[in-house]
């Protein structure tokens, strides 16, 4: 009965960026509880933006002070170069997404009211609004930060859920086309829960094998523990399923178009950028730090998955007639391109660094362009809400050349045309893959890029060289927030395409330390 359990050391300073975001989310819940309805939105917005900003400043400060090289909180959370780079990227993209979210009219007034019922009328009349959106977004962003930094499979699972659970809810909160939105929420939820069960069972198997969930200890136990390889293989495969699902890689991509289409467009922007980045960070960390010694087993699988994802995403995108679904399939294809970078890792540290920095740069470039593209989608509207069908976009270039031009520019960046950010992203990843000996994959990647370029260009042709429909959609005058988002995204796409060097250097120095072990 005597003796004390030593208190764990927790480096609050290192974890501060994440704690700020979670703290602000909790404050947001309190605001929801105690502030009167008409004030809530006005209180939430500064809290949300300020917390994201403070968190970002803390990261920059820590970066200048020197990137930590050991895991914080007794090895549970690794705050290293890549993690900090990913955190910074997610925070900036979340900040931009919040500007998009704050626009009135994207979210339902009363989610519990049945569409078309008297209750809904009443809620609309009273001007009800789900300002819970802000704390939910903050919780999701906190989860997105925790997930790629988790140095422990349990923390990774918790991070995965903290990231996903608010997003499931946010998906179902669209003001218009509520049936689609609710359906998207249900599909995302059921499939997401299914995949996280796989992740968890994989975690259990790995725990059985290594008697630890710490990634470094798992990595050290590979080849040391004898006679239980089956547990390890099953565990690794199942964790892979869980992570690839979140990325939306080929056999597990089915949720992505439906969810991206049904969710409110600002939330789609947040998901498409933030979740993908967080999931790639986690995938890289788990498969390098913990299962790096097993790469002979997982590399061929990822090879196949990457090919399937790239080609599948690019080919199915051609058949789409809905702009959001098309962007979703394009996101799947980009997931495949990023997987090339994962395969490009090798045994030499220099090779790993170049592959990792390529992936990090790609994620930044893709994230900005995606948020920008979805921001444009929010502005092209019909009587019933956003005009999603591609035929409605015909001739948009003649009615509002500026908007169509910016959108065309984003599409070219997705396609990876030189002088856009997408080009350097693809270039960095493909180059790392060539030096890493994955030339066949790069060829497939190039073919998939060409296929993808076809449908991007098709949309551009449609916008500029078709006659506009008589009752075509109107382009709403953007609010300052939306205009800022589109402008910022366009600026980032140009700057990263013309002067990529500063960000490439930053990504390189972030990747220098690789992942802490």
């Amino acid at each position, binding site marked *: 009965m005597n003796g004390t359990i030593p208190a764990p050391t927790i480096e609050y300073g290192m974890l501060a960026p994440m704690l700020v975001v979670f703290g602000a989310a909790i404050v947001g819940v*309190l605001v929801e509880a*105690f502030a009167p309805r008409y004030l809530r939105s006005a209180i939430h917005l500064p809290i949300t933006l300020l917390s994201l900003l403070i968190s970002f400043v803390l990261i920059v400060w820590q970066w200048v002070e020197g990137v930590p090289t050991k895991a914080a909180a007794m090895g549970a959370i690794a705050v290293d170069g890549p993690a900090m780079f990913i955190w910074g990227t997610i925070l900036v993209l979340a900040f931009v997404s919040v500007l998009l979210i704050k626009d009135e009219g994207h979210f339902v007034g009363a989610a519990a009211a049945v569409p078309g019922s008297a209750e809904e009328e009443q809620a609309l009349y009273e001007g009800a609004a789900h300002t819970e959106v802000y704390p939910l977004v903050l919780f999701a962003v906190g989860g997105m930060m925790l997930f790629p930094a988790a140095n422990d499979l349990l923390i990774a699972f918790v991070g995965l859920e903290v990231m996903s659970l608010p997003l499931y809810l946010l998906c179902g909160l669209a003001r218009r086309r509520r049936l689609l939105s609710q359906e998207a929420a249900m599909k995302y939820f059921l499939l997401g829960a299914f995949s996280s069960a796989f992740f968890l069972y994989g975690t259990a198997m790995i725990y059985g094998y290594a008697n630890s969930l710490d990634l470094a200890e798992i990595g050290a136990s590979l080849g040391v523990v004898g006679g239980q390889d089956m547990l390890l293989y099953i565990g690794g495969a199942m964790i892979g399923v869980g992570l690839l699902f979140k990325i939306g890689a080929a056999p597990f991509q089915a949720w992505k178009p439906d969810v991206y289409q049904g969710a409110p467009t600002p939330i789609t922007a947040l998901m498409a950028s933030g979740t993908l980045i967080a999931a790639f960070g986690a995938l890289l960390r788990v498969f390098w730090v913990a299962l790096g010694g097993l790469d002979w087993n997982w590399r061929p699988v990822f090879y196949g998955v990457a090919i399937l994802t790239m080609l599948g995403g690019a080919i199915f995108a051609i058949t789409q007639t809905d702009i959001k679904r098309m962007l979703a399939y394009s996101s799947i294809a980009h997931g495949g391109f990023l997987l090339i970078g994962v395969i490009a890792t090798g045994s030499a540290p220099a090779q790993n660094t170049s592959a990792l920095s390529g992936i990090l740069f790609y994620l930044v470039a893709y994230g900005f362009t995606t948020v920008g593209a979805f921001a444009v989608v929010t502005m092209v509207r019909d009587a019933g809400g956003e005009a999603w069908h591609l035929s409605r976009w015909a001739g948009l270039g003649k009615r509002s050349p500026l908007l169509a031009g910016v959108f065309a520019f984003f599409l070219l960046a997705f396609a990876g045309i030189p002088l856009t950010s997408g080009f350097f992203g693809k270039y960095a990843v493909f180059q790392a893959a060539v030096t890493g000996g994955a030339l066949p994959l790069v060829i497939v990647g190039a073919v998939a890029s060409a296929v993808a370029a076809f449908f991007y260009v098709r949309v551009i042709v449609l916008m500029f060289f078709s006659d506009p429909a008589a009752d075509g959609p109107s382009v709403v005058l953007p609010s300052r927030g939306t205009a800022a988002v589109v402008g910022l995204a366009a600026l980032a796409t140009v700057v990263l395409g013309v002067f990529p060097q500063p960000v490439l250097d930053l990504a390189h120095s972030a990747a220098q330390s690789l992942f802490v072990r």
Partner: protein
Amino acid sequence: MQLYVPILVLAVLAAGFAVFSVSIAPFTGPKRWNRAKLDAYECGIEPTPQPVGGGRFPLKYMITAMLFIVFDIEIIFLYPWAVAFDKLGLFGLVEMVLFIVTVLVAYAYVWRRRGLDWD
């Protein structure tokens, strides 16, 4: 035998309390008569009407059930701490207080947004 004395004392106390409560109640308690008093299972509240023929339950049952699930299971973290709180020392106490405060925030939200109201 010495070991069992406290249990015996406790049993006697419990029995005494039960007998005392039941016998004092008719003299001190107020007397009100309503349907609930005549029902087979009586807990002082008139039961809400059951749906006929296994029909659907009103949604408010589900909200109560969901809130119960969440708050009930959150408290599971208190058990390991309660078993070893003396060994965990001040750090454990502070962490637990932080945890309870976070749960209280959620509770405040539910309470203020009328999640606990039945009607």
